[in-house]
């Protein structure tokens, strides 16, 4: 059941991504509309798959890298759909769905194994911690995509050389506000994610801060985003500088998500998450 849902959602998301890329080249609205529908269907299938995983495991299905990547993809798509409702920007899908698709492909190449769920993952704090932290990641992915689009468009206007993307990308103002809003919305999620993580650690492990590499890197990520937000709101950074900074922040975030979990981490690593028995 879970396996079938995974395949269906992967298939639909890949189809939607292909459609979005064709849309950027051919500019036919029908292609976009179908891609969007496929993406919605893929998102629904992925939601079902995660629910299914939750019911089977009895805990948030993020204990392996495989399932964590799928969950990351889910939050990216969720954030995209939210922003789509606000900005109705057709081209945004062409930049964001490939990111979700890459995560889904990575997730599907990792063999799924049996997971033993430690009782501590059944705590109520665990899903809150995971969900908010991941939702923040999803929002920041949208900010990242908007920043990339901004830099492309800005350099075309600045250098007065207009490629084929010029007409397809929206105005600088629109891209900048997408970047701004995704930071504004994403940051509280990340903050709540970290606080609930500390509370949860207090309950489950007896101390709220253990200097685990994942904890440290999460704090660094948080500081990066806090600095960016501060510059944007208090100093009035916008445009190119803000875009570059949000790309840098996203790289730090990716390192925290993948690097710190895979190579550095102690108890946050997927190896220990699934492998620990007692």
């Amino acid at each position, binding site marked *: 059941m879970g396996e079938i849902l995974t395949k269906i959602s992967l298939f639909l998301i890949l189809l939607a991504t292909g459609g979005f890329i064709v849309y950027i080249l051919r*500019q*036919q*609205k029908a292609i976009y509309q179908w891609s969007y529908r496929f993406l919605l269907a893929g998102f629904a299938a992925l939601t079902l798959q995660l629910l299914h995983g939750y019911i089977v495991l009895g805990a948030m299905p993020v204990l392996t890298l495989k399932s964590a990547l799928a969950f990351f993809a889910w939050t990216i798509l969720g954030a995209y759909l939210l922003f789509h409702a606000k900005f109705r920007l057709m081209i945004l899908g062409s930049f964001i769905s490939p990111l979700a698709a890459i995560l889904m492909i990575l997730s599907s190449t990792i063999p799924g194994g049996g997971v033993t769920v430690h009782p501590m993952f059944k705590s109520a704090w665990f899903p809150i911690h995971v969900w908010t932290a991941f939702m923040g990641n999803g929002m920041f992915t949208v900010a990242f995509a908007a920043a990339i689009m901004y830099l492309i*468009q800005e350099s075309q*206007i*600045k250098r*007065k050389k*207009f490629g084929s993307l*010029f*007409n397809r990308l*929206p*105005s*600088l*103002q*629109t891209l900048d506000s997408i970047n701004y809003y995704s930071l504004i919305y994403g940051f509280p999620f990340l903050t709540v994610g970290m606080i609930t993580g500390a509370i949860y650690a207090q309950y489950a492990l007896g101390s709220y801060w253990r200097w685990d590499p994942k904890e440290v890197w999460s704090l660094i990520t948080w500081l990066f985003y806090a600095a960016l937000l501060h510059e944007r709101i208090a*100093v*009035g*950074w*916008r*445009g*190119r*500088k803000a875009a570059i900074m949000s790309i840098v922040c996203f790289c730090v975030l990716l390192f925290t998500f993948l690097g710190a979990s895979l190579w550095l981490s102690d108890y946050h690593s997927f190896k220990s998450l699934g492998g620990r028995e007692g």
Partner: protein
Amino acid sequence: MLKILDIGMNHETAPVEIRECLVKEPGNVGKALAALRESPFIHEGLFLSTCNRVEAFVVTENPQEARRSIVSLMSSLGSIEDVRFIPNLFTFEDNEAVRHIFRVSCSLDSMVMGEPQILGQVKDAYSQASKAKTSGVVLNRLMHRAFHVAKRVRTETGISDSAVSISYAAVELARKIFHDLGGRKVLLVGAGEMAELAARHLVRQGCALFVANRTLNRAVDLARLFGGKPVAFDEMESLLLEMDIVITSTSAPGFVIGHDQVKSVLRKRRSRPLFFIDIAVPRDVEPKVNDLGNVYVYDIDDLKGVVEVNKAQRRQEALKAERIVEEEVIRFEKWLKTLQVVPTIVSLKEKAEKIRQAEVKRSLANLGDLTPEQMSRLEILTRSIAEKIMHDPILYLKRKAGRPTRDACVDMTRKLFNLDSEMEEEEEYGLSRDDSGPKRAS
């Protein structure tokens, strides 16, 4: 045989001195349509008259005579002798005419290719023609297809996507930077035709206009002209703090706005984007200003470059549009051909029905009293016999509609069923009702 004929002149074939004679009076189209309706050779007609073209689309069976009446119509409309403009006329027939009206509607034939006004003008011409009842089956279909082609071209190609005039290109750029121009503050420094045009476009988009000039009187005059607000020239620093778009067009020999001047206000502006449109020669804005963050400077050559790129893009898109037009011309041609077998089909049906009615009438006299049910049975029986007999010939004609042998087939059918001596037939059936004719023997 019905023919579609298009006779007229456009900006390529006729100089403005001749075109203006024909379009100067506003009531001309009504007069022209009335004349088209009067002409015995013209079945349907439409008259299109814009500043770049004067054209008559007509449906006729006699192209020579129709052409003659259109030429004399144009000559009387413009009160010029026909010899003066006959060399400037073009004449398109059938497919050529269809292709031409399609190309006109989607602005492939316009002076500025891709301009959107022409479709509205064609629609007006059509609505006038249908009000004057000069449009019929063929023109109705033709014009609706033309609007469809225009819509396809607009949605499927980018022919009118990008600006091809300098002032519009500037507005388009502003929109790519600010998205919504409503409420943005525009400063016009100096005056000049192109700068004023750009300012006018921006005001129409909802921008608030401020006008600065070396002489305050001139600033006040200009501000009144565009509904803007005059401001003093020497407050430049504080103005730069406020403005979003600055259009410069002074005749000053040096730079009016310098790098350091702009740099000093950036932080106070909290990096809000600032867009300079520098139309002056020599330039008013120091080029280095473009290196500042969130500041964009476009001089006249940059804008010309944008326009050139856009023009090339339109030419590229025009190729796609031509393909769409070709597709639709073929589609229309097919429809037109089915139309040409329609009269024969109609007379076949009429003939069968006439025979049926006459025979029923004749038989009723001998059948005595029938109940209403028997009557209706008889009607149904005879009607279905007549329809079934005619079914295959009609199908055959419809199939041949698009073939080269169509005319021969139509001809043969008309002879076979004796369709062209309708009058004699009628007489025969009318008079020989009680005779013992050959039909009765059977």
